[in-house]
C-alpha cells in the first residue's frame, strides 16, 4: 500500500513538472555594436579632449561605455590616450583614435592635431628685481586661432637670471633674481619626445 502511494505521488509530481513551459524568445538583450560618439576630432597640440563611446543593444537601447573600452591610437607618435582622454604627442599630424572591447567590438575616428605656431607673451619688467611678476601667454595655432589656453605638453624654463614659481594654463609667475640685462624664457613642447620643439622669449 505504501509502495503504491509513493509511486502514485511521484508519478503525479513528475507529470506536473513535465507540464512546464519553455521560453522560446530570450528576454535578455545582447550587444550589437560599440561606437565612438565623435566622428571627427581636432585637438590642439597643447590640448586634450574627452571622447565618448556608446554600446548598442539589439533591443534598440544604448549605454555610455566610455569607461569600459580599451582606448588607443594607431599612431602613438601623433596622439595618445589615457582612458577616454586623447592628447597630442606631436606638434601637428593625423592619426586615429581606436576603441576595442574584448577584441570583439571596435571602432575608430580620425584625430587631427592642430599645430602650435607661436606663443604670445605679455611684457616683463626686468628691472623689477625680487618681486613676483605674472606673465600671461597663449598659443597661435595653424587654424588661425589665437589666445588659446595651453593645458598640457608645455614645460616652462628660464635662464639663471630669474625663477619661475607658479605656472597654470594661461600665466606663469616669474621673479627676476638680480640686476640683469636680459632674461630668456623657454616653452618646450613635448619635452621628453623625439619631436620636442622650443619657443623662446627674450626680455631685455
Amino acid at each position, binding site marked *: 500500500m*505504501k*509502495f503504491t502511494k*509513493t*509511486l502514485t505521488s*511521484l508519478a503525479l*509530481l*513528475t507529470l*506536473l*513538472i*513535465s*507540464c*512546464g*513551459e*519553455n*521560453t*522560446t*524568445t*530570450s*528576454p*535578455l*538583450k*545582447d*550587444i*550589437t555594436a*560599440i561606437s565612438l560618439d565623435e566622428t571627427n576630432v581636432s585637438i590642439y597640440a597643447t590640448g586634450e579632449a574627452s571622447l565618448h563611446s556608446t*554600446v548598442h*543593444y*539589439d533591443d534598440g537601447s544604448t*549605454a*555610455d*561605455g566610455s569607461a*569600459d573600452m580599451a582606448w588607443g591610437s594607431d599612431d602613438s607618435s601623433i596622439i595618445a590616450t589615457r582612458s577616454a582622454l586623447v592628447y597630442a604627442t606631436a606638434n601637428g599630424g593625423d592619426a586615429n583614435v581606436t576603441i576595442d*572591447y*574584448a577584441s*570583439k567590438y571596435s571602432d575608430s575616428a580620425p584625430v587631427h592635431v592642430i599645430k602650435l605656431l607661436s606663443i604670445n607673451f605679455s611684457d616683463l619688467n626686468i628691472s623689477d628685481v625680487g618681486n613676483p611678476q605674472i606673465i600671461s601667454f597663449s598659443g597661435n595655432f595653424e587654424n588661425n586661432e589665437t589666445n588659446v589656453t595651453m593645458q598640457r605638453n608645455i614645460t616652462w624654463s628660464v635662464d639663471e637670471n630669474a625663477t619661475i614659481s607658479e605656472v597654470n594654463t594661461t600665466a606663469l609667475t616669474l621673479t627676476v633674481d638680480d640686476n640683469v640685462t636680459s632674461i630668456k624664457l623657454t616653452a618646450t613642447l613635448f619635452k621628453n619626445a623625439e619631436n620636442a620643439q622650443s619657443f623662446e622669449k627674450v626680455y631685455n
Partner: protein
Amino acid sequence: MIYNLKTLLLFLITLSSLFAEAKIYMGTHYGLFSESFNDIEASSSESMATLKIGYGDIKAYAVEFSVEYARNKSKIFSSSPTASSDGNKFGFNVALMKAFDYTYLYPFVRVGFGTGYLDVERNLEKNLTYGSFQGSVGSFIPLSDSFDIEVAYELRHTSYEAVNYIVTKTSYSSVSNIGYFGINYRF
C-alpha cells in the same frame, strides 16, 4: 579509565552501525525538470540524465558524486537568431544523504551542491557556468540485494555566471523542480 573505554566502545559501535552495510554503488537517473527564473520572465523544462557513484548504506547514510546532462529546449540566454535554444547543460554534483529503514521502502533526504555550465550563443559568451544547491526527498525501493529503484523529488537553486553587457554584468538565478527515477547497483 573505565569511562573512557565506555566512550570508545560506544563510538566504535556507532561507527560500525553507520558503516556496517556501506557499499559502493552506481546508478543512473532519468528525470524531468521545470526551471523558473527569479529575475526575468523565463522558464525551461526538459528531461535530464544523471550518472552517479556513491558510497554508503541504503538504510542509513551515503555520499554521492554525480554528473548530469540536459539539452535545453528553451531560449533564455542565447541571442543569436540562428540559435533555436540554449545548448547542452553539463553538471557535477556532490550530495550527502540520510535514508531510513521502513522494511520495504527506504525513504531518504538528500542535500548537495554542484557546478556546471550551459552552452549559450551570445556575442560575448559561449557558455555560462553555474553553481547550485539542491535538496531532495525520495525513496529507494529494493529489488534485490544488489539492485534498487530510486524515485525522488528535488528542489534546486541555481545561480548563473553574470551576463556581460559591457557597461554592467548581471547575474540570473533560478529555482528548479525536478522529478526523477533511476536504478542503482550496489557492489
